[in-house]
């Protein structure tokens, strides 16, 4: 019961937050000197009449407050509006979200599957050669810029011909049977996943290692060891339980990154995800599309934090009692 109240309270708190986010971003986009019609205006074959009509159609002739009001009204009704080219924003996002989700969930799944155990091993074998090697590797992973790594891998794909050069599906995708389709998508995913995996693995492994080392150094672990409990039990039953809490907070942020974390890599690999769509929208000041993506990002972040906090309530009794008071 308390938990439901807590959730409701948290959700109510997000409303003013979302309003502030939307006002600030709307104003930023509209007050920036980006003219959504600049390209049309510089095209000699586009007449003044067409320009005037476009200005009216996009609502640019109205004052910013009115523009915001119109946008907010339809947003609350659940209508994301149309892009400056007359396509439905919701439809455009729907086309891209599954692609981005596919990429980011695979990456998050893999990094957690590999990163957490590697962090534990490194912490348990602290200062051993294995720990050192992992440290060197993760430092490289953290230091290498994602776009640079992506470009290197693309060149690798061109030189060897082992992998397709960007994209998500081959041009004859429509004629493949199911098995070939799965294989085709897998082949296209390997390189972008490698880039994102390498980069986020590093951070996660360091985090896990650090958390566990902190805990292993604490008094109750020493006490447990002194009691003569086996090292395995000390680490996995007592220490790990406490070391995992900061990781759950991290998971909340990873959730927010599901839809927005891979833009740079998507761009280099020409991956048909949200990143490319939104980059273009920002450049052209396509207000409905930009606003929809910003709001989506904000909601995902809030939701991610909420989920993390809820999970913490379940894993950490200290928060549980603190939250209900």
């Amino acid at each position, binding site marked *: 019961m308390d938990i439901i109240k807590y959730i409701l309270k948290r959700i109510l708190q997000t409303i003013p937050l979302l309003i502030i986010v939307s006002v600030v971003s709307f104003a930023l986009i509209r007050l920036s*000197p*980006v*003219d959504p019609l*600049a*390209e*049309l*205006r*510089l*095209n*000699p*074959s*586009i*007449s*003044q*009449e*067409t*320009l005037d*009509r476009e200005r009216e*159609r996009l609502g640019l002739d109205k004052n910013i407050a009115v523009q915001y009001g119109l946008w907010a009204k339809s947003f609350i009704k659940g209508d994301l509006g*149309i892009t400056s*080219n*007359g*396509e*439905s924003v919701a*439809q*455009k996002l729907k*086309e*891209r979200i599954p692609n981005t989700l596919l990429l980011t969930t695979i990456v998050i799944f893999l990094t957690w599957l590999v990163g957490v155990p590697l962090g534990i091993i490194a912490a348990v074998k602290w200062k051993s050669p294995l720990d050192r090697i992992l440290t*060197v590797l993760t430092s*490289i992973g953290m230091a290498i810029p994602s776009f*640079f790594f992506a470009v*290197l891998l*693309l*060149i690798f*794909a*061109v030189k060897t*011909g082992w992998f*397709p*050069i*960007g*994209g*998500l*599906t081959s*041009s*004859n*995708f*429509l004629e493949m049977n199911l098995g070939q389709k799965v294989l085709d998508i897998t082949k296209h995913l390997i390189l972008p996943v490698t880039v994102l995996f390498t980069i986020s693995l590093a951070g996660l492994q360091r985090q896990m290692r650090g958390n566990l080392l902190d805990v292993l150094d604490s008094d109750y672990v020493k006490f447990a060891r002194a009691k003569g409990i086996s090292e395995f039990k000390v680490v996995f039953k007592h220490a790990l339980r406490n070391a995992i809490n900061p990781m759950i907070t991290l998971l909340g942020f990873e959730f927010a990154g599901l839809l927005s974390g891979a833009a740079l890599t998507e*761009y*280099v690999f*020409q991956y*048909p995800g949200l990143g*490319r*769509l939104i980059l*273009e929208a920002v450049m052209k*000041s396509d207000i409905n599309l930009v606003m929809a993506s910003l709001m989506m990002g904000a909601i995902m972040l809030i939701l991610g934090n909420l989920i993390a906090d809820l999970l913490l309530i379940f894993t950490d009794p200290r928060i549980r009692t603190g939250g209900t008071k």
Partner: protein
Amino acid sequence: MKNLGYVVLVIILVLLLGKACLRRDIPETLTKTEGSQQEKLTLDVYPANRKNVTINGVDYIQTDLPAGKFGGTMINSTIGEGPKTFNPFNSKDATSSTFADIMYDGLVTIDPVNGQYIPKLAKSFEINGNDYIVHLRRGLKWSDGKPITAEDVYFTWKNIILDGYGNTSTRDSISVDGKLPTVQKIDNYTVKFTTPKPFAPFLASLSTPIAPKHVFEPAVKKGKEFFDTFMSTNINPKDLVTSGPFKMVEYVPAQRAVYKRNPDYYVINSKGEKLPYLDKLIYLIVGDANNEVLKFEGGELDVIGVKGPDVPRFKERQEHGDFSMVNLGPDTGTMYLSMNLNDRTDENGKPYVDPIKGKWFRDLNFRKAVDLVIDRENMVYNIANGFAKPLFTPESLNSIFLNEELKPYPRDVDKAKEFLRASGFTWDKKGRLRDKDGNRVEFDLLTNAGNSEREAIGVMVKQDLEDLGMKVNFKPIEFNSLVNKLLSTYEWDMVVMGLTGSPLEPNGGKNVWLSNGALHMYNQRKPAEAGVNLLPWEKELDYLFEKGATALSFEDRKKYYDRYQEIIYNEKPMIYLYSPVRISAIRNKFKNVYPTSLGGIIHNIEEIYIDTGGGNGHN
């Protein structure tokens, strides 16, 4: 000791990474002989004779190029985020227009060799003064099997174009003194257009796609607002009803569009078989130019436009590769330098251009000096790697209206200094240029940031002008704010920009040259200022563009447009720099490829076939 090992390891890694990052930022200067290797890539003549033949009541176009094999796929690409709409009447960008052109034929098309208009959906057309009578081909079908008739043509013109649906640029370009042409259906296969006055550019507008009435009529009835969103890219491609050689079957956003051959297309080969030969045509949607090059090298693309800096690399690969490069000649794009001649004030009485600077820019001697000191050859060799041609006229070098009398001239610093001296400019002890009143000559040079070609031009212009003792502050700024300065606030001194024009119709540039044009950047007037402070040559340009559009014969029109080019050549409101040369690469397996300067590399897409056996075919 142990630490030393780590240090060495890290240093080696850093060095390796550094080596990988190393890249020459400044292209090596090409010697002129290297640059002229481009001459080897020459065009073949397009040998096809096309004639009308009637078989079983269907009016076909028969081509006499060697008959080829059916089947196969060609993979092409487009840079950017793909088409914005599949509605040919809403298209406002090049990619959407490319996609529409494949799907919809117009009544006429351009002859890829000489640029004259020739019949396409029309079997023939006659021009009698203001009347254009178009006879349609009989027996043609839309992709859903419905016949293409005069009803469709009448509907397209009357209800879409003339009533102002979608992008109204076609309509605006054919209105003469505010009056629009009229259209009349004479019988099921004949349509008559009448222009209010003789108006030569009207013929060009007949190449506008024709829409299937039974598909577009319901949308038109729902009004203009609905029409703007009609046939957006959300539509299922199967619902598109088209007339072109290929029909879209699959559209994957941000990845590709797949076209299948139209089995009922009205072009046949010498054996009477219906073209196109290719089974599928695929356009990959590639986000940026570098990725496109990689895709071509990786074999995922069959055709590519090669940029100047990439040419040497492609040439190396061509030796062992399975593709050939073709030089399509100068592009329609023109790079220019312009000065702000505006001498008016804003509503608060503040001059748009600093009056001191304005005085220099409006001085013809100053403009001539700037023009003479610019080293176009150097730009061609260093920026475009030799794959460009210096340009001195506003019409592009492949324009059929190009004034050949206007000769190129070399850089001449001494002559430039003479012009400046004649206007009372002097140099102080440090070699700095000062005007009559002793003001230091210093101004801003703008261009749009992110366009590396224009940024490189800006740097070279700055260096060239410094030879005259001018101080140039080169500032690349964001594209949108640049356009805002050029067209709304008029707060700029000098700018490097580019425009594309039509090599066939100078009237398309009227927005730039008419004194009240929307793109009359070098002396932009607010609508309320129309006709204010007209320079004598601006007045003459207004006259020439009116005359040029209303004269009918090519020779008469050429006279007016020759004079307009001469004015720009002499008065230099815009100083033209160079035109890039277009180079394309295409796989050798494609036969019947006859690129032309006006038509591009695959203008005869329906005649192109694949022959991997090699031997008999062309190329």
